[in-house]
């Protein structure tokens, strides 16, 4: 119940300020623009393909439109999720209200979960809006192919959802350690970029280290989802990533008890 009260308060904060609206607007605009461009691009290519039977085989709308779209959304969220998570705890520290929260009859777990779930709710709302693009997509290709690629969409959304929750858990943890929102946001973007590109480092490495680096990389575990593949080992990795950083945040809350 307390989790719910905290969540309610956080949601009010998101929507009473401009944060949530700006977040939704920027994301939906960029994704919408990209979606429009790939649709236009696809239709131009398909007029060429019409004269070439070999090319038609490779004109799979899922691969050419959905997959890049999900990849783009994932990448975009590296820069947008920190906007949602930066103030979660940094603001409480700045205002000093965290002292109030710590002396109310709620547990650290309830506090952290309430805040996390509020941020996730904004995310769910945002993904809800992006289904408009999916509807347009199925309408556009409804006559080309009788089979709407439900699987690709489902896998893409599942991957995107897990990925963005992983970003959020990380961002929340960073926010719990600072009282400055700008620091919180920048450190989160930096950290997430490292997690994103670390996979490229495997070229210069070999042996077990290469394997580790490859497995740590978030993009590695996200890419298959965008291609419509659901692999349990990716799900397990992302879920562990989320739980790990939620757990760390709770620990940061508890640290005050043991410090000194």
């Amino acid at each position, binding site marked *: *119940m*307390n989790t719910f*009260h*905290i969540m*309610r*308060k956080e949601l*009010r*904060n998101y929507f*009473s*300020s401009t944060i949530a609206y700006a977040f939704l607007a920027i994301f939906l605009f960029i994704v919408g623009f990209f979606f429009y461009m790939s649709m236009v691009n696809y239709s131009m290519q398909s007029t060429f393909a019409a004269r070439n039977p070999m090319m038609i085989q490779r004109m799979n709308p899922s691969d050419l439109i959905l997959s890049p779209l999900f990849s783009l959304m994932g990448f975009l969220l590296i820069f947008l999720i920190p906007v949602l998570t930066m103030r979660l705890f940094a603001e409480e*520290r*700045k*205002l*000093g*209200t*965290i*002292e*109030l*929260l*710590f*002396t*109310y*009859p*709620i*547990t650290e777990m309830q506090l952290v979960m309430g805040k996390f779930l509020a941020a996730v709710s904004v995310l769910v709302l945002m993904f809800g809006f992006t289904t408009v693009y999916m509807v347009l997509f199925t309408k556009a290709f409804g006559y080309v192919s009788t089979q709407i690629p439900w699987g690709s969409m489902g896998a893409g959304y599942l991957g995107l959802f897990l990925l963005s929750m992983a970003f959020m858990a990380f961002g929340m943890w960073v926010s719990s*350690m*600072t*009282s400055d929102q700008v620091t919180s946001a920048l450190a989160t973007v930096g950290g997430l970029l490292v997690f994103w590109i670390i996979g490229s480092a495997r070229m210069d490495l070999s042996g077990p280290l290469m394997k580790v680096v490859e497995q740590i990389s978030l993009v590695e575990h996200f890419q298959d989802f965008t291609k419509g593949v659901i692999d349990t080992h990716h799900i397990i990795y992302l879920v562990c990533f989320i739980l790990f950083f939620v757990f760390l945040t709770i620990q*940061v809350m508890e*640290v*005050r*008890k043991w*410090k*000194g």
Partner: protein
Amino acid sequence: MISADKLCKRFGSVQAIKDVSFEVEKGEIVGFLGSNAAGKTTTMRILTCYFPPTSGSATVAGFDVFKDSLKVRQNIGYLPENVPLYTDMPVEYFLDFIASLKGIPGKERDAKVQSAIDRCGLGEVAEKPIGFLSKGYRQRVGIAQAIITDPPVLILDEPTVGLDPKQIIEIRNLIKSFGGKSTVILSTHILHEIEKVCDRILLIDRGQILAFDTLPNLAEKLQERYDFSLTVTGSTEKIKAVLKGIDGVDKLQETGKSDKGIYHYRMKIAKSKSVREAISAKLTADGFQILEMHIEKMSAEDIFRAMVPDREKSAKDQTEEKPKEGEAK
């Protein structure tokens, strides 16, 4: 209602409080008095379960602050120093949120919020965002969130700091009205506040308790002799001679003269009653008229000076050395 047993708290190499033990009865109003960084806030933070003590134990409303921390927190209202509040929330919404966190079910919440608003005189600003309120109103919002559940224990850290004299009196009366029903601990370094509000004083300096008693008792213990003032009509030379002749009168000085032979004197006298009787009897017997006699009682300030003598001045310049949130990074 509240008991602390040998509480110690260290922050790294700094010993914030050491061996703090005391008991507070139900319905009492106790004032923590001490200079900055004396350990008042640290003690309060332990009692409110913000952090546990390094060693020692404390119980509030019958629950251990460490083992039953959630139950303790259900039974206290706490006003932290500097009154942290959500500045973007309207007063009413804020109090409703706090009430929900403190576990008041939805049905009763409106009534509780309304009652807190009424008691703290927030009716006029209930709809306004807290960020727009004056310092005095914010202080009241802070107190309102502490009392909203009518908790048996109230812990108020410097409730009147930064208010104007009128507001101080209002807040003081508000706090007094909780006495008897709730047990109140408040901290302050404004000395006469303690005299006006508190039943007992806990004098704390450098993390240790120096004294814990009622103001008259503390004064009684500290005062070896009374400051005594006297106004008499007659001839000053003769009066002085009579007074000097009385055993137990010391440091006699004439402090002034009004018209028609009225003289004012100050002196130190021994604490026994017989000295005062002797003064009165002898002067009267010699034909002088006593217009006024008065014992100067020690104020909280005198007591504070007497017990924390040499450091008082330097303490005022000292900046707060309290551990602030955000150091965790």
